[in-house]
């Protein structure tokens, strides 16, 4: 237990606290120094106090890069605020750096601004290797010259007063430092440590508590700036997790018992979570021999009446293409989750991109209508799987969920879901098949048909990817093919009738409408908010159902002078050589919207591998509307 004499009354600190609406903190270190654990704990403490939080991990691409290099930088960004936080924001306000090299990896990504405070581990000044000492001294000068405010913090020295080896505990000392810096509750931070180390011995917990108090005290005595970010109490039960964890919980809440997958970044962590949780909730992660076998296995389960999910990323989607076509043609319910990464080909495995939209919409040879939906928040990652399973079974169709690397690693609190029995997949129907009902007895109005499940007496049919009649028999007749294609397409139209027009964020009409989909929602809406504060006539709209497309878009678009999509995928810039409005290759949603609405939809997109920042949106709006940049 904590020793009471270690507690510090915040009133005894040297400086008065500055109250802020929000702040962005980064902790950067070498891989393996625990920066992410410290950041996650800090994020959880903030969320528990009722603050809005978004955390995102900074992950090195290699497993064990050489230490003290830009490649080895591992870390975390925590954006915390008085209200809800929906994205990672712009530049960091505070950086805690475990060595002098780490900040440079982030400076390369424009993650810091003039005035960003860098709290840097000072032990390198006295390192036994003179070249390290020099590197440290040089970096200090350079960082100051770049306009950052540098504070040397004796983290190692302070930790060594508490533990014999500081390597493993420095992160919790940093947690103590941040706890003091942002006026967090020490009790909640202590609870967080007990939670984090719950599987470890009491002595481990005690040492980490001491480190927490060490950082907390040091900060009170030594820093000449302290903050407070008041929280808005919601009183709601909250859970906090990343998008992949939310997807995996959604899989379980939907009653799906098989996740058939092949390892691929950044989707795999969802399966790790499932492999552990399925042991308690019931189910199995099948690690197949390849991406094709993974979807084939899932289709086998679904065909036999037990819904399954396959989780992958771009290259895996490419491999699954033929089976996706089969699921469409033979009308097998299936949930496919695509956690998108940079492409094409192997691309940028750990970075965010929204480049698979057209591939999933139109990627199968032949016409393959299917449902495609994209969550825009961590909470929706959970909800959309539950929804997808039901759509897949009700409409006898594959359903694709498009998440991305930004949602996969972004952590955000949301109201705790209350799982219900009706979310779970119903037991397999094994009652005798109604005589004379055909295997694909399409309802003319809706294209829907009832599906015989193996085991149902009298329902025997042979599922085939060949063109088939309503009886399920192979047919090479053109009119049978035309009719089947029409019925499969009609299902999509019927499902589309259940959708409502999307909500317009901001005024219902105006100069500019931004249209986004997926993980960019938070950044877009924040950019729109800031622009509107400056008087801009701009609104935004976020699409969740991309197939069938949400209705009413053409009418909504008609109320704005200009419509522009905001996406993280490639588009030609009109100012580029050789590019004209006619040959320009638009971003992916823009292509679809132009085709479906005949509106001259413009696009703003890039493939920089980074989540969009609100400032990028703001600046784009300012430029678009010829507003002065202030």
């Amino acid at each position, binding site marked *: 237990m904590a020793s009471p004499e270690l507690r510090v009354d915040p009133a005894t600190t040297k400086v008065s606290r500055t109250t802020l609406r929000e702040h962005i903190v980064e902790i950067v270190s070498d891989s393996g120094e625990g920066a992410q654990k410290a950041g996650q704990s800090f994020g*959880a403490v903030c*969320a*528990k106090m009722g603050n809005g939080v978004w955390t995102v991990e900074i992950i090195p691409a290699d497993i064990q890069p050489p230490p003290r290099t830009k490649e080895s930088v591992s870390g975390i960004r925590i954006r915390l605020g008085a209200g809800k936080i929906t994205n990672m924001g712009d530049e960091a306000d505070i950086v805690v750096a475990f060595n002098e090299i780490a900040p440079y990896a982030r400076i390369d990504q424009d993650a810091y601004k003039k005035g960003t405070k860098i709290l840097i581990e000072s032990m390198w000044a006295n390192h036994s290797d003179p070249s390290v000492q020099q590197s440290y001294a040089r970096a200090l000068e350079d960082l100051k010259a770049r306009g950052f405010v540098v504070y040397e913090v004796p983290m190692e020295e302070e930790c060594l007063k508490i533990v014999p080896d500081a390597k493993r505990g420095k992160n919790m000392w940093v947690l103590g430092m941040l706890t003091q810096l942002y006026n967090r509750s020490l009790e909640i931070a202590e609870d967080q440590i007990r939670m984090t180390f719950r599987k470890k011995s009491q002595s481990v917990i005690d040492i980490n508590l001491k480190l927490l108090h060490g950082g907390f005290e040091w900060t009170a005595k030594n820093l000449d700036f302290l903050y407070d970010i008041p929280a808005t109490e919601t009183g709601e*039960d*909250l*859970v*906090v997790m990343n998008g992949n*964890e939310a997807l995996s*919980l959604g899989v*379980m809440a939907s009653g799906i*018992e*098989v996740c*058939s997958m092949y390892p691929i970044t950044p989707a795999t962590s969802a399966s790790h979570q499932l492999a552990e*949780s*399925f042991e*308690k*909730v*019931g*189910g*199995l992660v099948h690690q*197949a*021999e*390849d991406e*094709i*076998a*993974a*979807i*084939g*296995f*899932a*289709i*086998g*389960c679904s*065909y*036999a*009446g*037990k819904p*399954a999910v396959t989780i992958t990323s771009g290259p895996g989607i490419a491999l699954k293409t033929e*089976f996706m076509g*089969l699921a469409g043609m033979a009308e097998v319910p299936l949930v496919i989750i695509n956690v998108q990464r940079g492409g094409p080909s192997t691309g940028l495995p750990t970075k965010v991109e929204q480049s698979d939209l057209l591939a999933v919409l139109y990627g199968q040879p032949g016409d393959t209508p299917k449902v495609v939906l994209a969550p825009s928040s961590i909470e929706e990652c959970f909800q959309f799987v539950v929804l997808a399973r039901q759509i897949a079974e009700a409409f006898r169709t594959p359903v694709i969920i498009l998440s991305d690397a930004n949602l996969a690693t972004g952590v955000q*609190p949301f109201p*705790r*879901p209350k*799982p*219900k*029995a009706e979310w*779970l997949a119903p037991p397999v129907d094994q009652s005798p098949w109604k005589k004379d009902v055909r295997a694909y007895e399409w309802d003319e109005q809706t294209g829907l048909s009832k599906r*015989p499940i*193996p*085991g149902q007496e*009298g*329902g*025997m*049919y*042979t*599922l*085939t*990817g*060949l063109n088939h009649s309503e009886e399920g028999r*192979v047919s090479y007749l053109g009119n049978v093919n035309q009719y089947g294609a029409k019925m499969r397409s009609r299902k999509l139209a019927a499902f589309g009738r259940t959708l409502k027009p999307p909500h317009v964020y901001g005024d219902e009409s105006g100069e500019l409408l931004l249209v986004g989909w997926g993980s960019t929602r938070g950044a877009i809406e924040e950019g729109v908010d800031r622009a509107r504060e400056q008087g801009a006539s701009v609104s935004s709209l976020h699409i969740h159902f991309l197939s069938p497309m949400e209705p009413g878009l053409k009418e909504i678009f008609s109320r704005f002078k200009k419509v522009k999509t905001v996406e993280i995928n490639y588009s030609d810039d009109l100012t580029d050589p050789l590019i004209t409005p006619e040959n320009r290759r638009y971003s992916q949603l823009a292509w679809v919207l132009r085709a479906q609405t005949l509106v001259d939809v413009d696009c703003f997109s890039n493939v920089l591998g980074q989540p969009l920042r609100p400032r990028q949106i703001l600046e784009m709006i300012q430029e678009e509307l010829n507003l002065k940049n202030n």
Partner: protein
Amino acid sequence: MYGLKLDYCAVDVPDKYYSQSDYEKGTARWCPGCGDHSVLSAVQRLCQEKQLAPEKTVFVSGIGCSSRFPHYMSTYGFHGLHGRAFPVAEGVKFRRPDLDVFVVTGDGDCCSIGAGHWIHSIRYNMNITVLLFDNQIYGMTKKQTSPTSPIGTMSNTHPHGSVLPPINPIQTTLGVSNVSFVAQTADWMPGHLYATIKAAHEHQGFSFVKVMMRCPKFMQEQAKALVADREHITMLTHENGIQVDEATAAIFSHKKEHDPSDISKARQYSEDPDMYYLGLYYQDKTAPRYDLYGAHNMGFSAEQKLQALNAELDRYAL
């Protein structure tokens, strides 16, 4: 079997008795003289003898002449993608152990486009009966070289003769770890064919049967020669092997006693360049089965699930 129980103390009368016609559907559209017809008959006979409920039986296939098979069975069928029958069958069997699952595949389907799945399905060792129809040629797409075509086979893709030695499916299967049942038979020997398929179906695991198959359309000469040749065919015999009647046994000029638990000998026979061995090469009833792994973890009640799910959510609760 329908009728008297073995101890003569009771009569076993199932709800329904199936005749062979209960398994037949349509007219098979294979060429006259194609070996596929005889396998179809043998399988329908097996279903009838075992009284497999048609609604509880699933034939999964890929693409090719062989893979039309499910369309001629009045059971459930899954005629899917070229080379991809195995993963689908595994999914079906994994979730529905109550179903009898067969895979019907061909030499192109299994040993070429689906070779990756083939290797892994051997290792998974799920309780599935696999019939590889090996006619050493692509028939449906009109005479292209198959990976099992003998070297020198004239085809539309190798007009001067194929240039590589063929894949040997028995040898390959015996080379994969966790292999549990490997047998060879021939379509023109109905007694042996039936006995082999029956033994395969009774094996609890991945039973791999290579059926040597005639293609009267594109491999006419080879087919004729094979059927006529008694000198290069040997029947493997053993008390733990494939048991055939006397008339069937009499067809074979050569017989060899082979203990199917001896994998080294099995591999040796599979590699013999001058002899086809028909019968059971290898069987291991103790090989771990993937369909049993995790099976205990399925089908929790809704209450159990919701309780466990809430406990999982607790881990993320603030």
